[in-house]
């Protein structure tokens, strides 16, 4: 969960793994200082991880999503249809990662916590140390930004959905 959230924030597997490692090291070093005070440990864990991601982003200024590497499961696709589908899925993921990367950090964080990590609005607001109203505003602006970024590619992004479902079923 921490890895996936870090990946969403940083757009790179390598950077996300570094952030996860730093998160656990920081937790380990500061564990004795943690006082529950009503907060769940998970909330603290996320807060530490997301602050590390935000620090990394400020140092590197902008994230550049890495293109999905060829090989692995992609390379196992057999037949022209599957290869086309593989390329389509990879391009779509890259386009969405790119659109996410263009969002302001706080909007991306709100979407990461609520959509991808499926945390409740109360938990996400607690991690971000903002009110639920402020969180909802970030979510709405973030989703609007994503829609605008993805609008020019909308047809292409939805183009192969039917084929994809067929492959999922078979």
């Amino acid at each position: 969960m921490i890895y996936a959230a870090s990946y969403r924030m940083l757009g790179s597997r390598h950077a996300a793994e570094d952030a996860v490692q730093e998160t656990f090291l920081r937790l380990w070093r500061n564990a004795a200082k943690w006082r529950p005070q009503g907060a769940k440990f998970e909330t603290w864990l996320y807060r530490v991880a997301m602050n590390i991601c935000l620090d990394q982003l400020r140092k590197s200024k902008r994230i550049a999503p890495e293109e999905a590497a060829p090989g692995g499961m992609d390379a196992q696709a057999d037949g022209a249809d599957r290869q086309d589908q593989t390329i389509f899925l990879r391009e779509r993921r890259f386009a969405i990662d790119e659109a996410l990367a263009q969002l302001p950090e706080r909007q991306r964080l709100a979407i990461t916590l609520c959509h991808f990590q499926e945390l409740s609005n109360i938990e996400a607001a607690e991690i971000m140390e903002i009110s639920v109203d402020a969180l909802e505003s970030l979510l709405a602006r973030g989703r609007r930004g994503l829609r605008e970024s993805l609008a020019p590619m909308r047809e292409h992004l939805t183009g192969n959905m039917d084929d994809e479902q067929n492959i999922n079923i078979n």
Partner: protein
Amino acid sequence: MSKTSTSIERLEALSRCCEAYGADPARWPAEMRASLADILVTDEAATLMAEAQELDGFLNAATAPRMSEDLPRRIAASFAVPKPPASLVDFVRSFAPALRLAPAGALAGLGALGLASGMMSASAQTPLTPEYEALAYLDDLSLTAMDEEGDLAWDAE
């Protein structure tokens, strides 16, 4: 308040809900889900939800790539696990060659893995120390490395 204005207000509430949380009611705050349940079947609601549904579909398709399988071990090896009783050390050492782990790594791994079972039996009565909470999440991370869905899950079939 007239029935029409109430209905308009509720559609506006639905619109705000979809804008923030998307079209899946399971993702909405519980109170919104309950208060809007009966208007979801209307045509107006379907129109409002369609746009949000498309973006949800795109986001759901953007799965994160798998993390390195050895990341949990790398992390566990990088910090000092609370010293276990001497008898446990001997027990773990006896398994270390078979596990192909350095003793320190084996201790960390076993600490993390053993914690899950410890949590199940003790969590209701005794709060875990933060160190062990961290280990529990590290254990969870190991499972994530195996479970994280790649972008071509169908290909594995």
